[in-house]
């Protein structure tokens, strides 16, 4: 046991030392990386003995030789052109294996939004104060081994600043491409998003891959939505079928702000997404929705925390899952209503559709309330397709196979239709359809 744990740590430690030489940085970041590495060495990869990882076993990931590589992949714009959407064709920021590639990014139409390499922002007097204030503030690397690992390997990433009062009409996309250049690559995408007071923007965070090789993506995203700001955040995870992805999204909401997140999980062999929203100012509202679709040999896990620390905040959460073949899913949703968080309105729902007897889902919605004047509801459901609905479709001449696909599509649509960007909805409709092996067309 001890030797098994020690092996990957040594490997990452070597890579860490190499990184320090190649990518030196300012003292405070150096300190953050050092202490994050210390934490990772102590914590290691989480195991199933950890309550938060009870149903997701990372043993196979910890055993593999995934390593960050220093050299850049030789990709051209043509390789990544297909990953943007019509709405984001002039505002698509591309990272390859976790490193920002300005040469592959399209930034003609940023509509007032500042996008810079996170490492450059650290060194830039205009942004260094903001970055120092917010980087590694909400993403906790002291207790979470994987966040610590990402933080230790901080060397690039994206800093997005939506300046005060800027209302952006066109969405910004951040595309994280796994090059698949060679097997065993580990990458650590890192995003820091700051939406300043009364700003408004749409953000698309997308994970795709070019090859079929196995790799490991460990993402940390920190989002700060300041007073009165609005952010619509769409997350698309379409890693390849061999990939491991662990990700954490940590959100902090200012007074009267609004945050609307839709996380779509379609890819990866093993995917874990932790999303936490801290509402520590009055009058904030959030929607934290998601859809996961798993099939043969896929495992997906979503852990969410919605933390109502102040009064008059609303949270709405709808996560839906479709499980086929021997696919597995985990949903764990915690809603905390802290003392004093009166007039909280919190709703959490998780619904799962099992299409195969081999599929399995473990769902655990949790509600902890320490205030007395609140409105909270939560629930989880696991089921098969509704027989009455199926008969209704058959009675209109739709054959049972097609009917099942249509109902499954309808189940997913309730989440997909929340996304504000039309071509993303269309692509997701197609992706879900093709996963369902149907001959359904768009209408």
């Amino acid at each position, binding site marked *: 046991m001890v030797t098994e744990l020690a092996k990957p740590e040594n490997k990452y430690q070597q890579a860490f030392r190499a990184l320090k030489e190649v990518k030196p940085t300012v003292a405070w970041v150096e300190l953050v990386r050092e202490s994050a590495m210390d934490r990772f060495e102590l914590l290691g990869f989480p195991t199933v003995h950890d309550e938060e990882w009870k149903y997701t076993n990372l043993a196979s990931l910890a055993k593999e030789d995934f390593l960050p590589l220093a050299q850049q992949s030789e990709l051209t714009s043509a390789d990544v052109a297909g990953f943007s959407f019509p709405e984001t064709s002039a505002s698509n920021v591309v990272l390859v294996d976790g490193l920002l590639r300005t040469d592959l990014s399209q930034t003609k139409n940023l509509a007032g939004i500042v996008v810079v390499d996170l490492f450059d922002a650290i060194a830039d007097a205009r942004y260094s104060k903001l970055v120092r204030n917010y980087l590694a503030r909400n993403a906790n690397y002291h207790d979470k081994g994987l966040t610590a690992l990402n933080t230790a390997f901080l060397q690039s990433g994206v800093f997005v600043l939506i300046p005060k009062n800027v209302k952006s009409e066109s969405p910004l996309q951040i595309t994280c491409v796994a090059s698949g250049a060679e097997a065993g690559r580990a990458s650590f995408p890192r995003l820091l998003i700051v939406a300043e007071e009364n700003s408004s923007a749409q953000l698309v965070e997308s994970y795709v891959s070019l090859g079929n090789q196995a790799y490991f993506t460990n993402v940390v995203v920190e989002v700060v939505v300041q007073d009165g700001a609005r952010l619509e955040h769409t997350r698309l995870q379409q890693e390849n079928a061999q990939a491991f992805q662990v990700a954490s999204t940590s959100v902090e909401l200012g007074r009267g702000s609004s945050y609307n997140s839709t996380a779509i999980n379609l890819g990866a062999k093993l995917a874990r997404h932790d999303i936490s929203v801290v509402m520590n100012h009055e009058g904030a509202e959030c929607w934290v929705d998601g859809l996961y679709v798993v099939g043969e040999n896929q495992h997906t896990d979503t852990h969410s925390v919605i933390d109502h620390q102040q009064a008059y905040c609303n949270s709405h959460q709808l996560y839906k899952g479709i499980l086929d073949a021997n696919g597995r899913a985990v949903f764990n949703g915690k809603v905390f209503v802290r003392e004093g968080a009166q007039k909280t309105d919190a709703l959490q729902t998780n619904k799962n559709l099992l299409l195969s007897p081999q599929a399995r889902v473990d769902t655990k919605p949790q509600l902890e309330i320490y205030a007395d004047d609140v409105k909270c509801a939560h629930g989880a459901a696991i089921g098969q397709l509704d*027989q*009455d*609905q199926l*008969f*209704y*479709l*058959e*009675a*209109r*001449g*739709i*054959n*049972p196979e*097609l*009917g099942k696909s*249509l*109902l499954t*599509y*309808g*189940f*997913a*649509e*309730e989440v997909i*239709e929340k996304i504000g960007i039309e071509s993303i909805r269309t692509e997701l409709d197609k992706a879900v359809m093709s996963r369902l092996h149907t001959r*359904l067309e*768009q*209408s």
Partner: protein
Amino acid sequence: MLEIRNLHAAIDGKEILRGINLTVKKGEVHAIMGPNGSGKSTLAKVLAGHPDYVVTAGEVIFEGRNLLEMAPDVRAREGIFMAFQYPIEVPGVSNAQFLRLAYNEKQKHLGREELDPLEFKDLLKERAKVVEMEASFMTRSVNEGFSGGEKKRNEILQMAVLEPKLAVLDETDSGLDIDALRVVAGGVNQLQGPENAMIVVTHYQRLLNYIVPDFVHVLANGRIAREGGKELALELEEKGYDWIKTENQGSGAVAPAN
């Protein structure tokens, strides 16, 4: 068009239909009436092929073919349409999407041309007039959040799009106010012609003021207890169902309850 002979059907082992005989010809409108529990809705569901009902004896011949051997979706594509008493909500699937799929499945089955979304939109717009439905209903999820009246109108819209040979309306009047009833019945009348037929299942005579039947069949205890023309419905309205039940039991026509 339809020949039902000695039809027996059960649900959960309990026999509901106990020997129905009924012949429906092209151009005819038949009303099936009867008290609660007489088996009228069961008859409609058996014709549509609802999986909960098991046919234990008898046969149903539709256009010269054994209907009971056909799966529900095949029956629908062959031209049988049941308007549901309680139309089902299908979240996430738009009315237009659902109807086009159903329409094209039928076209394909009959070896006819399928319609693309734009062509179908025109057809749908035309047919929606039959039940005075607004365009906004087409982009909404099937029956989701529809009022009772809107759901029934949506059933008739589906019927208008699918143009069945035989329509079976299962208590389409239940839960409708007088205005909605008029719209629904008006739609049904527009769709009735010399080449198709209808079976209208209803508890009350009220609907038959609008959809005038050629024949009225009264069910009691799973059998047809009384048959006649449209005037039979009026007689029922006046006397209620009790006299049929009593008369039937007196004649010994009803099998003892099991």
